[in-house]
């Protein structure tokens, strides 16, 4: 959150390593996935059970964010600046249980009924982000302190697959006389011919905006808008679109009374109609609204340094961009942390994802002289118990002075 650079007690903060990785899905726990992959006797019943566990709409996602360089410094008590470089790979795929059920069982069990096979959405993005942060102490009174910040970001797109709002509906006539397939698809893709470290396929701009309010000594509140913006992919950009219904009646035979001719060459093309253009397209960032409130109990170290001895906080994250890699998911988090002598900070948080998934997270950071090391996860269950469908890991190594 951009305004945090102004509230850091250290004048200079440099991250040497800052990495965040996440992997998860909305249907299977790590335990279930591990069981399936390591069980040698998976059979048809196993597949039936796996399909039964799927929801109507299912998500699978993963990502890796690396910050090779990130530093900030306070000019004075009223102004702070920062610069960050991040490599971001973020993916999310959405699919419907019905699609897999039809693939597994065939279309015959669903004859005579409209079968909605969607949504089938995909989002893969690798971008490079260069951000400059400016934070300003807008209000400094006895009991009130307000920092506001903005972080404009220059974005370079490396590759992208952006397939928002795709749907396929199938209808099989009761006796199999025809199969109607309705396509509502729009798929954008931009992949380079060769993958080179700094070869890009597009660029764009993003913004992070934030404000931090401190009331008295202990109450904190912040409101942030993160990842507003998009990347326009131009190189090797392709868009495949279809919005029509096709009817499959079989392969046509001609000249039945003479030399039979099989007209099968166009069947595949006729059944998968799409238009293809090579226009640039915009791939949106996973915009989020983050609201956080905290109650912090201050303390003083033996050396006379101020720190927050205990912290209790709640965080609400709401995704704003339906077809981005985060979508419109929401996270509600309640947490607490304890700082021991300003050197060791340990805490945990209880997270609820989309009001139906619970996760238990933990974090630990240590400070030795100017060196800071931190590690944390929003979900311990997969790491410890192989339970739960989603986990992540954040590792930070930096300098603060």
């Amino acid at each position, binding site marked *: 959150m951009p305004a945090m650079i102004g509230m850091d007690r250290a004048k200079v903060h440099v991250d040497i390593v800052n990495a965040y990785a996440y992997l998860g899905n909305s249907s299977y726990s790590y335990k279930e996935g591990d069981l399936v992959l390591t069980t040698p006797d998976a059979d048809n019943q196993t597949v039936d059970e796996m399909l039964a566990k799927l929801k109507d709409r299912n998500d699978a996602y993963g990502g890796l964010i690396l910050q090779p360089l990130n530093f900030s410094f306070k000019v004075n008590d009223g102004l702070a600046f920062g610069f960050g470089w991040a490599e971001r790979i973020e993916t999310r795929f959405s699919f419907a249980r019905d699609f897999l059920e039809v693939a597994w069982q*065939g279309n015959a*069990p669903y004859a005579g009924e409209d079968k909605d096979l969607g949504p089938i959405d995909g989002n893969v993005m690798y971008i490079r982000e260069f951000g400059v942060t400016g934070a300003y102490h807008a209000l400094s009174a006895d009991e009130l302190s307000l920092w506001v910040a903005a972080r404009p970001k220059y974005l370079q797109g490396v590759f992208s697959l952006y397939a928002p709002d795709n749907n396929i509906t199938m209808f099989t006539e009761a006796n*199999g006389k*025809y199969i109607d397939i309705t396509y509502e698809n729009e798929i954008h893709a931009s992949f380079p011919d*060769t993958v080179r470290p700094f070869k890009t396929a597009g660029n764009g701009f993003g913004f992070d905006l934030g404000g931090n309010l401190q009331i008295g000594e202990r109450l904190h509140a912040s409101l942030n808008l993160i990842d507003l913006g998009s990347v326009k992919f131009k190189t090797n950009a392709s868009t495949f679109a279809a919005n029509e219904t096709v009817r499959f009646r*079989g392969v*046509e*035979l001609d000249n039945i009374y*003479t030399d039979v001719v099989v007209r099968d060459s166009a069947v595949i093309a006729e059944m998968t109609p799409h238009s293809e253009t090579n226009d640039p397209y915009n791939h949106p960032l996973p915009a989020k609204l983050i609201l956080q409130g905290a109650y912090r109990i201050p303390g003083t170290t033996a050396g006379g340094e101020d720190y927050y001895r205990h912290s209790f906080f709640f965080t609400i994250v709401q995704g704003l961009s339906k077809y981005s890699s985060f979508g419109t998911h929401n996270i509600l988090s309640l947490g607490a942390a304890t700082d021991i002598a300003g050197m060791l900070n340990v805490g945990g948080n209880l997270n609820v994802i989309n009001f139906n998934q619970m996760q238990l997270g933990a974090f630990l950071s240590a400070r030795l002289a100017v060196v800071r090391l931190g590690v944390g996860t929003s979900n311990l269950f997969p790491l410890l118990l192989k339970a739960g469908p989603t986990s992540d890991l954040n590792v930070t190594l930096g300098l603060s002075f």
Partner: protein
Amino acid sequence: MYDDKALPLYTCSYILYLVTLIYLSMKYMKHPSLAAVLILALTWQACQTFQNVKWEPEYLGPVVYTVIDPVEIGNASADTILYASEAEDLQISNFQYDQQFNTGTIGPVDLPAKHEPLFDLFANVEIIQGSVELWFENTWPITISAGTRIVGEDSLAGPIFDHPLPHDVAPGESYRDTIPIINKNLQYGFTIQWRDFQSPGGNVTFQSGNTLDLYYDFTLDELSIALVKPNKEYVLEDESQFELNIEDDSLLGESPEGTLSFFIENNLPAQIELEMKLLNSLGDTVYTFFNGQPVVVPSPAIDGNGYTQAPTEADIIDAVDIADISQINDAAYLYTYTRFITPSASKLVVDNDNYIRIQLTANVKVKGQ
């Protein structure tokens, strides 16, 4: 015909082969994508994990169909016709058979016209585009001169074609040509005739019984409208080459399960009776469809102007058990016997909107691994 060399598309090894190809194709990048490596590894692991899973989706849907239109029926029903001419019709004054004599210069003379019915099922055909192929061998001992005309006429519609020979055709030589027909009307009153027959003649001997045989064959490409003869039965029998090689490791597996169904839609002004059999290379029957009974599809209702109204249908559900596929594998020919029985009406019309549609659908379990 339809050659179904089915591929084992759904075997784990084939999927792995495809994914390997994708990965290797990405190797032309200097830095192979981590995603490709991950996909390859996950696919290999998935194939190992699910090797005991039998993937057998059940497919219900169309396989093949054919639409038979009046043009196709007309061409199938139009036989090659012979117009045979007697030598004495050349009107040579001293003509005699089996004796050598000098004919002198012959013609120009018109040989007697012959009438022949065309397109047996049709009473009247308006051809937008078609053709007639003419061919003969000059079996007479005289040269037929260039300029000699072959003329086809309809007694009501007038000339259909008038084709002068472009060069001399000597004794023993053959001649063949195709003449386009555009926007012509053909009816029962069609006649064909040699006109302006010319020859330089010579000292020759005509054999008795030796006729000059001219063959002609009409082909429809597109017709505007045709009248069909009411209260008439017409039969089309045909053998088409047919091959269906479904191997044991195909999508249907070693023990196929399922059935094939036929759906026939009739929009011709005729009742259709259809029989089908499969024959081996020796002509013996290896499989009889519909239990040997003809499928009867009634004629659609006819309106006051002679046009068909709504098509009629015949559904033969589960006509073929896929378990009999081994018999079908021995087939070399598809034999069809189609009987058209036109109803009683003052007028029966067909045009390019009329058709018979025969569709084959399948309800089968596809075997994967």
